[in-house]
């Protein structure tokens, strides 16, 4: 939908945490809340989709509940990735979509920076297989129980450095253009 007609209702949602729960009436939060009643989750209003924060321990259980809930039926894992928030750990983000119901939700699990371990979602969707391999090699997140924990894009032996972490430096440019002039080229013969 175009960005102008906001389907989020009139009031402008202020900081996520202090949001009154009923302000999310127009999103799918009520049905998600009912589906995930066994898990304590914290909703948040995203720019486009509803965001649900789930504690690390029972993420896979929550995902399975969302998938098997017959009113929601999130049977399609759109994308799985991680966001490095430096001090306060790494967020693993699951974007789910329900094809029959045409619904979207984002599930986020927060991992502490020192112990980045999480259950694998391949038991819920096969799509998670490669996505988890890529997240693992890029962020250093270890998905326990992953059927094939090899690197995906990186060379096989590069399992110690994690490029997409904020701590991984940008490579310096080898030679600034000016210094290349050290290459002895007499002026004027170019034409």
């Amino acid at each position, binding site marked *: 939908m175009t960005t102008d007609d906001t389907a989020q209702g009139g009031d402008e949602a202020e900081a996520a945490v202090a949001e009154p729960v009923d302000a999310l009436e127009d999103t799918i939060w009520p049905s998600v809340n009912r589906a995930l009643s066994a898990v304590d989750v914290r909703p948040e209003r995203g720019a486009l989709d509803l965001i649900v924060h789930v504690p690390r321990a029972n993420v896979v259980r929550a995902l399975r509940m969302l998938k098997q809930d017959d009113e929601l039926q999130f049977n399609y894992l759109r994308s799985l990735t991680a966001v490095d928030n430096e001090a306060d750990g790494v967020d693993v983000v699951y974007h789910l979509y329900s094809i029959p119901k045409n619904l979207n939700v984002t599930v986020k699990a927060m991992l502490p920076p020192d112990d980045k371990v999480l259950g694998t979602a391949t038991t819920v969707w096969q799509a998670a297989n490669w996505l988890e391999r890529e997240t693992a090699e890029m962020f250093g997140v270890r998905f326990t129980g992953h059927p094939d924990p090899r690197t995906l894009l990186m060379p096989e032996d590069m399992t110690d450095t994690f490029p997409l972490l904020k701590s991984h430096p940008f490579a310096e440019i080898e030679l600034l253009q000016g210094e290349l*002039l050290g290459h002895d080229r007499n002026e004027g013969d*170019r034409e």
Partner: protein
Amino acid sequence: MKGIMKSLAVTMSTFMRRPVTRNYPTVHRELPERDRAFPLLLWDQDIDEPFCTGCHACERACPVECMTVLMKDNPNHEAQGGTSKRRKIVDEFWIDYGRCMRCNICVEVCNFEAIAMNNTWRGHEMSVYDRADLVMDLPQLMSQSKAKEIDEWVAD
């Protein structure tokens, strides 16, 4: 066999059509005016000096950092009896065509309209043997504009 006959009919119909090959090295296609080969500096013909004042705007805006600019005071400035109003002028300017990704951002940020995209064939035929030769210095960057070969196109 009907399908195979249909395929044969299609190939026979293209057999009759005029070939579409463009004989590149012998026939140079006429380039659209907005063609973006590589950035080059423009020459101010009437005051006989480059438009560029070396203000580093393009150098900062370049995503791949392929430019290096040095600035100096303009000897031709009116205060010293010259004809130009520019107090500063570009001293040294390098663009590494090997790194440039031709995204046209330098042309957009330049507020002196001193840099433009080369839309001539010479801008495309740039193959060299040594990567260092792809680094263009000031005389090279201004040569085509000084020789009036460029009628540059800059988005309004």
